[in-house]
């Protein structure tokens, strides 16, 4: 009797995060990393007040939580599997724990911070 793998959990998160990243990240990176800081979207696009208002709205919370946590789950799944591609032996549980542990930590931090914002 072969043992059933638990990969489906992580793969589902990887897939959701990867699709979200593929569709949304390029424009979000342009906004927060280039256009926003350079003032192309107006002088107050990234002001504290505006960012706070966004993070306090239910849509904003959902958006920020979804993007940050799913991108982390996607990235760490890929990073963990790439370790194997680079010659790290499979089955060394420590890498799996660290990779997914960091993703879980990031998810938790995002959720707690969003609740802190109110």
């Amino acid at each position, binding site marked *: 009797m072969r043992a059933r*793998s638990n990969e489906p959990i992580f793969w589902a998160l990887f897939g959701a995060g990867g699709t979200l990243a593929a569709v949304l990240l390029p424009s979000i990176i342009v906004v927060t990393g280039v256009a926003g800081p350079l003032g192309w979207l107006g002088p107050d696009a990234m002001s504290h007040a505006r960012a706070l208002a966004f993070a306090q709205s239910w849509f904003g919370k959902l958006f920020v939580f979804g993007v940050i946590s799913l991108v982390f789950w996607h990235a760490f799944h890929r990073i963990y599997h790439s370790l194997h591609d680079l010659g790290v032996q499979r089955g060394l549980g420590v890498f799996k724990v660290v990779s997914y542990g960091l993703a879980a930590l990031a998810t938790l931090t995002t959720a707690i911070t969003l609740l802190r914002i109110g």
Partner: protein
Amino acid sequence: MERTAAGVREIEIEVLRYHPERDDEPYFETFRVPFSDDMSVLQGLQFIKDHLDGSLAFRWSCRMAICGSCGLMVDGEPHLSCKTFLRDYHPGKLRIEPLSHLPIERDLIVDQQDFLDKLSEIKPYIVPKDTRSVEDGTFTQTPEELERFKQFSGCINCLLCYAACPQYGLDPRFQGPAILALLHRYNADSRDSARAQRMEIVNAEDGVWGCTLVGYCSEVCPKNVDPAAAVNLNKVNSTIDYFSRFLAPRGAGR
């Protein structure tokens, strides 16, 4: 391409040699082969064996890309030697090696036993739903039912996809592209009823979850089987299978 003094065109073929009875490691040997535009790599090897070195060992049979015997590496890429032509590589030289990721037995011959062992585990045959007698007549299928598995039935077991799969090279416990594609061929066949048993292989760590969608397997397949698709759509099936246990605990068939 070079011409000898007599005007005969030649090409250099560098071949990886290995003799288990006397070599510790494989080594390259270069041969100069006269060639014409219609010669395959297989014909080049046959010239070497017939005229230059009778000890050169390689597999071949049908010489028309259907038996799956002649797989090898040409300049680092998996090819069927009967379907690859010397004219596409001149004026440079050709580097011929046995299929990657498989142990070398002698010269260009690899050990296929791992694949054959895996093949016998997946029930590569139709397990009918009910017993049928001759009087019941043949199975019937719609064109749509045929389309669901037909592509995956084209596999000639040539193992080019294993030579293309780095995950198999890194860990041969992985089932690999052809095995999973063949497994899918039977799961997708409306006449078959053994899906649950085969899913056990799919769902394991060495089943579909050993694949990271490098995708090279489907690029090298000479029969357009698309094993990458077979493996990855079964990741979806495996995921559904995994979570549906919790949604329908009674009678979920686990």
